């Protein structure tokens, strides 16, 4: 009687979760894989910084060789205060990556609940949250960050907070869009018909289906935060010296650029590579996790 139905079943035997497909798509994207590997190396470098560098980044041990160009003993040369430049660059990655990741975590922590509320409840809640987002979009983030930075005179934690303050908007919008789209789906209605509370539905159905925008939002918030920190340090109101941070090193390096190019070039390249790697990795994740692939 109903056995005919089984004859038309598809032939796949193995369990293929949606995540599996995403993984397949991701591994097909060479740029993203390379970016991921580079990112991994950078993270390892940051963690093991003391192990791979000869001296401490603040140690002005090489004053006699100040401004020396790259050589065998000093791979990236020596800066104007006699510090080994290679060491400073490696330690600089610590600052950038920590700030990047922590700010991204905060962005997600703020963005997800707000996005979920706005997407699920709509109406006044949505209107209110959108107005708040509008406030944040109208003010150019860098200027506002500068203002806040000047207000609080920089400092590690403040910068993370500032970066999170401007990063949550993206995550919130992504989550909100996804939840709005899924809210009208019939499995949500079915859960409502079963008597599930809104919180249950958000927790059990909507958030798991929003994993993609959440991951993407998180990963793409990292380079934004890093750039913000670098910009603030570049302008002198970021992480204070003598902590090695790439933005600051670039700022100092510009003054010496015409003669001692290595002081400006190395931190610039370091920053560029890190930002590039994180962004390409994030893009790769987005393309892999988005089932409505555009243009592939």
């Amino acid at each position: 009687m109903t056995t005919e139905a089984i004859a038309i079943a598809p032939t796949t035997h193995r369990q293929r979760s949606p995540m599996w497909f995403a993984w397949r798509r991701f591994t097909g994207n060479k740029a993203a894989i390379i970016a991921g590997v580079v990112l991994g190396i950078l993270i390892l470098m940051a963690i093991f910084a003391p192990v791979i560098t000869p001296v401490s980044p603040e140690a002005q041990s090489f004053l006699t060789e100040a401004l020396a160009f790259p050589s065998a003993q000093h791979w990236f040369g020596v800066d104007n205060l006699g510090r080994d430049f290679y060491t400073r660059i490696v330690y600089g990655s610590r600052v950038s990556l920590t700030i990047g990741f922590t700010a991204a975590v905060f962005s997600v922590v703020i963005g997800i609940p707000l996005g979920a509320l706005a997407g699920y409840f709509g109406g006044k809640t949505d209107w209110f949250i959108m107005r708040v987002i509008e406030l944040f979009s109208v003010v150019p983030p860098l200027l506002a960050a500068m203002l806040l930075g000047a207000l609080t005179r920089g400092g590690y934690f403040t910068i993370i907070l500032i970066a999170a303050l401007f990063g949550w908007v993206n995550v919130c919008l992504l989550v909100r869009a996804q939840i709005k789209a899924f809210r009208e789906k019939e499995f949500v209605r079915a859960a409502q018909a079963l008597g599930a509370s809104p919180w249950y539905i958000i927790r059990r159905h909507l958030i798991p289906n929003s994993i993609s925008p959440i991951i993407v939002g998180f990963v793409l918030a990292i380079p934004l935060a890093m750039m913000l920190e670098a910009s603030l340090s570049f302008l002198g109101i970021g992480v204070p010296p003598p902590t090695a941070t790439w933005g600051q090193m670039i700022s100092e390096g510009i003054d010496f650029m015409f003669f001692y190019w290595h002081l400006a070039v190395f931190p610039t390249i370091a920053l560029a590579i890190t930002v590039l790697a994180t962004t390409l990795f994030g893009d790769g994740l987005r393309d892999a996790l988005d089932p409505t692939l555009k243009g592939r």
Partner: protein
Amino acid sequence: MPLVEIADLKVSFSQYGGQIDAVRGVSFSINEGESLGIVGESGSGKSVSCAALLRLLPATANISATSLKLDGIDVLTANKEDLARLRGRTAAMIFQDPMTAFDPVFTIGHQIAETIQAHRKLSKRDALTEAEQLLLRVEIKNARDILNYYPHQLSGGMLQRAMIAMALSCRPKVLIADEPTTALDVTIQAQILQLIKKVQAEFGMALIMITHDLGVIAETVDRVLVMYNGEVMEQGPVQQIFDAPQHDYTKRLLASLHTSFEPSRDDDTAAAPALELRNIAKTYRVKRRKGFATTHSDFHAVRPVDIVLPRNKIVGLVGESGSGKTTTGMMAMRLTEPTAGQILVDGADITKLGSDDLKSFRRRMQIVFQDSYSALDPMMTLSQIVAEPLNIHGIGTSRQQTEKALDWIERVGLPRNFGNRYSHELSGGQRQRVAIARALILGPSVLVADEPTSALDVTVKAQIIGLLKELQAEMGLSMLFISHDLSTVKSLTDSVVVMYRGRVVEQAPTAQIFANPQHPYTRALLEAIPAANPRYKRERTFLGAEAIAAQTPRFTVIQTGLAPNATPQLVTIAPGHRVEAIVTT
């Protein structure tokens, strides 16, 4: 020389990890003026074959054929200019969903005119005049206004007519219609099919009608091609196919047209009805803004409606789009809040219950939806999906829940080991089975089924209806089956409620509705059903809304025992049979 000549056509698509063979060696030909119907379920390759004829397939398609000729020209080796001339001029195509077939940023007039201008040297003004003529020929009365309308401003039926006008604009020799009426209401479908036949005759074109609906085939074509899984199963004159099918698959298709079941027994009229909707209504406030002022108007989706679902019976709720049937179903489940009226489950009023009190009632009534794809959470396994109701109501331990879920998966006809699969791995019919399992696992007494089979293939449709019927008998369920298709309800329901524009216009036991329909709208619905056999095909006349209102049955005070009233109201004319009528003196 045949107009269309296809010999051994093969089409495959390159995809992730391999090829998919959509068409495996299909051959047929058509002469001028002939009509051919290609019938098959989804995945049969019928649309792909015709798209290949005009080279409309994406670049991922590999096409090969011994012969693929249109009007003598080899399509496979044709250059760009030849192809451009073939498309639109020699063969024109109309598609399933008219809303997505038009460019949203240009007016209808512009889009028809540009087709004309692409093939002939005409000025814009002349092209528009011709466009207007064409629109009139497809029975669009206010053609001049429509020229300036944008696609989103027209209804599905109107857009489909406009698409036909666009296809006819260059006097093609063959018209290819790819499921042109699948997305339309039954009465509109009948009108469009009649229109297609009319213009085919008037313009002397050949017609290829691609559809999954055998009724459409019976109405419109002379020859039939039956396709399954990329191959031709059977070919022949339409009467022969219907009366003496040779191939098993054809026989199966025809069988699903004629399924009939016995109605359910157990008349337990003493007990309270399983579900009762009293005076239920839904009104939406529509805000219109002009400047700073906001005007409100009321849209009555459902005017006060009474529906009774007796114990252990199946009631069909039938209507076209805009009738309010889905809204009524949603209100019964309190997924949409009624603006007025009461909902009674087993005699208890649940209209105003808070969510906590309502929760216990939720166990007694469940719903199955139309779109099986979005009915299942893509991130959950099947056993999780089916066990969810137990989870929400806290019944049993996690292991017990999984066990029960797997039991139910088996009960709806799927293998037990499917429990670890995800919804995207299943076909539409299989997903619908899972949705049914989820709905019934709590053992509800009422099931609302909102068009559960509308999106399914014909053979699968019959299976799902069979399953529902079986489960209903086993569990003593009371079912409210919402559908736009009278023929589906014929084989399933005990009684039928017909809705039109938010009101109930007729209500009767199923046999009565089909044998003795009183209301003009019910009659129109029945008229519109495509014939089950070509010998019953016929010309039809269609009633507009005014005509329906004008033909509202009239009964006297004596016949009905009610006070005279100019507004139509529901009047009982036989046991269990009510009609909306005007009571005169």
